[in-house]
Every structure is written in structure tokens, then in C-alpha cells.
């Protein structure tokens, strides 16, 4: 453990998780204007640009630590070399994925094809496809770090260990004896640092800022995706997405800005929790807002009674002038269809 900490590189390059997320977000945003056949090359180019801009930002921050930050400072020649290295690392990482893995990941993240559709096409289940996607993301993070470090793996076991760590898959980590390997393998101990940085708590928890109409769609899509990792029935996935849509709309309409945090729960049992918060005007009369007669949309209502019916748990706290927080949960249940 000491060795691992000593060898950890502190902020020397952006975490792989950040890069993957940022790339996919950008490709997703642009996907409406891209030809389907162009998605893959576009994703690679975007990855390069993201790496470039993240490196630039990090580099500028370092350079300007003791001065006024000037974001328009042109790049200095010596940073260009490192920048090129970072770019090709992401391109190499994407290229190292299997063709089918890469295609499925891009189709899912870029074209927005949901796991049910992908599963139907592959004759598989949505859960299996979601698990495969997680493994692909985990693998991409590993390949990125390896390419960025230009590392040669000393043992056959290294890659499996790193992928298990990257995916936060504890069962797999035990199978490949990851803990023991980290103590024995200096390289993996060092590389595991950027892989462990974000992965774990981000894996089952998402925070989505909500300020405008498109965020409502993004938030409900993200919630559905996260929920689809559990064994929810298709109806429950729609119910969850719809409830998220409703609470997000209230944020956009009545508070202007806020956030939604979606989290998978293990205790007291498996389920998904959604917390929607804003710093808006608050709801003066909650009882009235939860009264069905008052709250049908159309008028000034908030649609909250409907949301409460959709979810298993529902709580609302509001303080006039200070904002509103809605917390709601759907529990996984065995389904018969």
C-alpha cells in the first residue's frame, strides 16, 4: 500500500474516466448531425480533442499558478509534444477494443440505442448487454492508461487485474486476486491509481445538472440506463424515467436551476433512488401540491401526485425562498414477464 501511494502520480494527466465521459458526452451531443457510418471516426477525433483541451487546461493551470490566469494564452511549443502523446493514447485505446465491443459502445452512447434494443438484436438480455457495456468502459479506461504510460505489462495477469479494478467488479477482483497482485506488481500498483480514482462511486451514482429543457430528456435517459443495470421490468424502467422527467420539469419551470442525483441502492434492498433538488422559490403549501385535484399539470400544478403514485417511496421537503428537494425510490421486484 505504501508503495502504491508513493508511486501514485499526482494530477499528471487527466483521469481516464473523465476523458471517456467527456468524449462520449460530446459525441452524443453532436450525434444528431453525424452520419451513422461516421460515428466511429468522429468519436476518435473527438477523443483527441477532448484530451487536447483537458491537457491544455491542466497545463495552463500549472503554468499560471502564480499569475493571473489567462485562458487565451497560446500553447507553448513544449506542451505540444505531450499533447500529441495524450491524443494518440486515446486513439490507441479505442483501437484496442474489439470491433464488436467498440461498435456496441458507440451505438449505445452515441446513437442512444438502449440496452433492450441491443439485446433483442443480439439475442441476449438487457442486463447482459448493460454488463458487457460496463466491461467495455472498464477496458477502455485501462487501455487508455496503458497507452498514455506506454507501459509494457510484466505478467499475463496484469491486464485482467487492471480491468477488474477499473470496472469496480469485486467478484472479479477476488477471482484474479487483484489485491495480492497489486502488492507484487509495481507497475499495476502505479497504474491502478488513476483507474480507482473515480470509477467506484461514479459507477452506481449519477449527478445531472438540470437547467433547461434538453436536460430533462438527458436526466430521464440517464436514470433509465442506470436502472436497467438492475433487474427492473420494462414497465418499471419507463415509470422511473417518467417520474424523473416530471421532477426535472418542475426544476426547469419553477426554480430555473437544480440537479438530479440518481443512485442504485443495495440496502435495505436493491432499488434506485432519485433526489431532485433546487434552490428555487419553494412550495408554500405542500399538502395542496400533493392534492390530486390541484396538481394536475395544465394549470399551475406540479404533477407531484402522479409522481408519487409512480414511485414506491416519495418524500418532499420545501422551504419557501430556499428551494425544494424531492426524494423518491423504486425498489426492484421480481417480475413475471
Amino acid at each position: 500500500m505504501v508503495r502504491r501511494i508513493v508511486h501514485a502520480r499526482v494530477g499528471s494527466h487527466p483521469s481516464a474516466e473523465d476523458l471517456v465521459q467527456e468524449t462520449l458526452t460530446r459525441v452524443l451531443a453532436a450525434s444528431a448531425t453525424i452520419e451513422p457510418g461516421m460515428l466511429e471516426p468522429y468519436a476518435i477525433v473527438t477523443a483527441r480533442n477532448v484530451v487536447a483541451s483537458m491537457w491544455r487546461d491542466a497545463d495552463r493551470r500549472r503554468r499560471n499558478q502564480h499569475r493571473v490566469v489567462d485562458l487565451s494564452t497560446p500553447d507553448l511549443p513544449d506542451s505540444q509534444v505531450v499533447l500529441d502523446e495524450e491524443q494518440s493514447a486515446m486513439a490507441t485505446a479505442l483501437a484496442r477494443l474489439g470491433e464488436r465491443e467498440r461498435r456496441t459502445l458507440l451505438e449505445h452512447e452515441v446513437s442512444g440505442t438502449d440496452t433492450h434494443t441491443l439485446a433483442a438484436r443480439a439475442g441476449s438480455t438487457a442486463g447482459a448487454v448493460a454488463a458487457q457495456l460496463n466491461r467495455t468502459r472498464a477496458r477502455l479506461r485501462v487501455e487508455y492508461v496503458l497507452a498514455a504510460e506506454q507501459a509494457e505489462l510484466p505478467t499475463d495477469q496484469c491486464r485482467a487485474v487492471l480491468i477488474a479494478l477499473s470496472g469496480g467488479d469485486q467478484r472479479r477482483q477476488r477471482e484474479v486476486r487483484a489485491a495480492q497482485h497489486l502488492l507484487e506488481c509495481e507497475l499495476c500498483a502505479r497504474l491502478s491509481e488513476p483507474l480507482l480514482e473515480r470509477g467506484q462511486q461514479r459507477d452506481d451514482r449519477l449527478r445531472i445538472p438540470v437547467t433547461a429543457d434538453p436536460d430533462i430528456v438527458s436526466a430521464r435517459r440517464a436514470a433509465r440506463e442506470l436502472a436497467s443495470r438492475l433487474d427492473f421490468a420494462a414497465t418499471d424502467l419507463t415509470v422511473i424515467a417518467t417520474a424523473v422527467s416530471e421532477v426535472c420539469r418542475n426544476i426547469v419551470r419553477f426554480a430555473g436551476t437544480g440537479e438530479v442525483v440518481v443512485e442504485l441502492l443495495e440496502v435495505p434492498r436493491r432499488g434506485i433512488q432519485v433526489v431532485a433538488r433546487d434552490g428555487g422559490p419553494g412550495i408554500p403549501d405542500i399538502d395542496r401540491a400533493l392534492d390530486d385535484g390541484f396538481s394536475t399539470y395544465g394549470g399551475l400544478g406540479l404533477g407531484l401526485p402522479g409522481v408519487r403514485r409512480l414511485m414506491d417511496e416519495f418524500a418532499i421537503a420545501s422551504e419557501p425562498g430556499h428551494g425544494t428537494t424531492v426524494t423518491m425510490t423504486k425498489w426492484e421486484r421480481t417480475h413475471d414477464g
Partner: protein
Amino acid sequence: MNGGPALVSIMRQGSTLIASVHTALDDSELVRFEHDLIHQIGEHRSRGVIIDVAALDVIDSFAALTLRRIAEMARLRGALTVLVGIQPEVAFTMVRLGMGTGQVPTALDLEEGLALLAAHPGAGTDSTERDARPGSTP
């Protein structure tokens, strides 16, 4: 908007307009769709409107109200609207939410939607010359 694939396509077949939603729409996109469709109903003096929402994985309160409002405005202009392709999970959720489709008739798919319109005097697509038939709604 700017060269990307259309979110919604509106096609004309005789006196019927067929609007297909291709992807999830946010609120502003829904409102734009509403305006476009109502405009075209007036322009073509359509008698029947089919809105295919099979691509919508969520129909929340705003979407449901927008669809109902489109149908009501179309009715005031003499056109009958049929919603087709609502997914079973979506239908279930709409009911739980307390929304539903109101008075707007629904059909399983495009074919059934066209059949439903054909069964309504004045609303169906027919091969006869389309002439302005004011006030011929049932």
C-alpha cells in the same frame, strides 16, 4: 433545424397528415412540433391526422397534454386525430400518472390508424378529389 436528421416527419397522404416522431423530444421540440403540425393541418385542410409516437419511450404529463392539445386544435379545424404506436409500458405509466390520452382515439399502428380514420365519415383518406368540405366533421 440545421441539417441534422429530422426529429419528426410530417407526410401528406390525400386528406390525411401522418406525423411520425423519430426520437425523444424535449419540451421546446414538442411545442415546435405542435405548431408545425397545426400549421400544416390548416394549410392542407386535412381531415385526418395520425401521430405515430412509437419512438417515444416516455410520454410524461407535458407530452400527454401537448398531444391532447394538438388533437383538440385539429378538431376545431375539422380534422380527427388518432395517436398510434403508444408502447404498452408508456400507456401503463400514463394512466398511473393520471394523464391518459383524454378523448383522443388511439390505434395499435399506422395501418389501424388509417382504418380508424377511414371508418369516420369525412376523416378518412380517400381517392376522390379532395374538395373543401366545410363542417363535415361528425
